[in-house]
């Protein structure tokens, strides 16, 4: 609180908040000049308020005339009704928009926020399971098929390799047989020629 005239005027006019008013009272009690100024201001207000209000020379009651009565819908279409209508319209738009954009889900009991979250999580997990299981089975079947083909291919390769080794072994054995036969034939021919050269 200062000795500012505006502060003192606000105090006299009752415009100070309670805390400031108490501070002003202490200040005025402690400062003679402020107290004199407050006294002068109160005297001005007292002088001004000596002018009493006059009674109107006649009553104002013209609105009883039917011409000035509001239409029947003015009573219905008041601000509260307008607000309610606007709220209902926004709610309707929200519902329609949700219906158009959102995937329809089976209705379930609505509870608290946590319950709804739990319900949604369950639905998501069920949907994931529903879509994931066939995909996994398909992938497993594909891998199994691929592994089977690989095994067949490996078995065939092994068989071919074994067959090739057998053929090579047979060829070696045949060549050895032919060599032995050739040697035996040569011996027979040598022996036959010796017999024919001796008397």
């Amino acid at each position, binding site marked *: 609180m200062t000795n500012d005239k505006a502060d003192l005027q606000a105090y006299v*006019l009752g*415009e100070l908040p309670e805390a400031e008013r108490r501070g002003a009272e202490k200040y005025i009690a402690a400062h003679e000049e402020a107290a004199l100024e407050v006294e002068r*201001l109160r005297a001005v207000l007292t002088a001004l308020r000596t002018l009493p*209000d006059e009674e*109107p020379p006649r009553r*104002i009651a013209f*609105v009883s005339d039917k011409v000035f009565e509001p239409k*029947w819908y003015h*009573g219905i279409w008041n601000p509260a009704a307008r607000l309610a209508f606007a709220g209902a319209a926004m709610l309707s738009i929200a519902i329609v928009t949700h219906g158009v954009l959102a995937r329809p889900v089976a209705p379930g009991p609505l509870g608290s926020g946590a319950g709804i979250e739990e319900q949604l999580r369950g639905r998501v997990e069920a949907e994931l399971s529903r879509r994931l299981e066939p995909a996994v089975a398909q992938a497993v079947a594909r891998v199994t098929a691929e592994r089977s083909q690989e095994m067949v291919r490996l078995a065939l390769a092994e068989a071919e390799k074994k067959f090739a080794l057998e053929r090579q072994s047979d060829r070696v054995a045949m060549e050895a047989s032919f060599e032995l036969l050739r040697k035996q034939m040569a011996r027979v021919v040598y022996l036959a020629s010796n017999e024919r050269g001796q008397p």
Partner: protein
Amino acid sequence: MIFREVEDRDLILKARRGSVDAFNLLVSRWEKRIYNYLLRLVRDREDAMDLSQDVFLKAYQNLPKLGDPARFAPWLFRIAHNEAYSLLRKPRADTEPPAEKAVAQGFAALLPVETSLAVERALEKLTGEQREAVLLKVYQGFKFEEIAEVLETPVSTIKSRVYTGLELLKGFLAPIRSES
């Protein structure tokens, strides 16, 4: 006062729904304040009476536009202010000086002559803006924020007008105060 405001709000809501009786009751509650406010602005009883009729007619017709019923008083005085200044802006055939006219038919017949003359003349010396701000503050008891709403003027400007007006009145009325 709070009880009275609640009742006014109830009457306003009923009047909005078309209750003429509710509005007539509102008129009976506010007509004296509106009439005296207008009388101190235009300083003519007949003009003040005619303006009061217009104010309540416009209030009745525009009642559905009043957002918050608790703001009825500033809203009603806003209409009165507009009506008064519409009249004051019109060129008048009557050439009698307003101050003299006020003295002739104002409060002189009802009050001690010295005080009424001194107060009337002191108010006359204020600017129109200062006088109206002081009238709304001293005679109608509005808060600064409400006066700002009535006059559609910043609160700081209203404070300045009231404080300056009071300071001037203090000087104008000093002889009366010293005599009393």
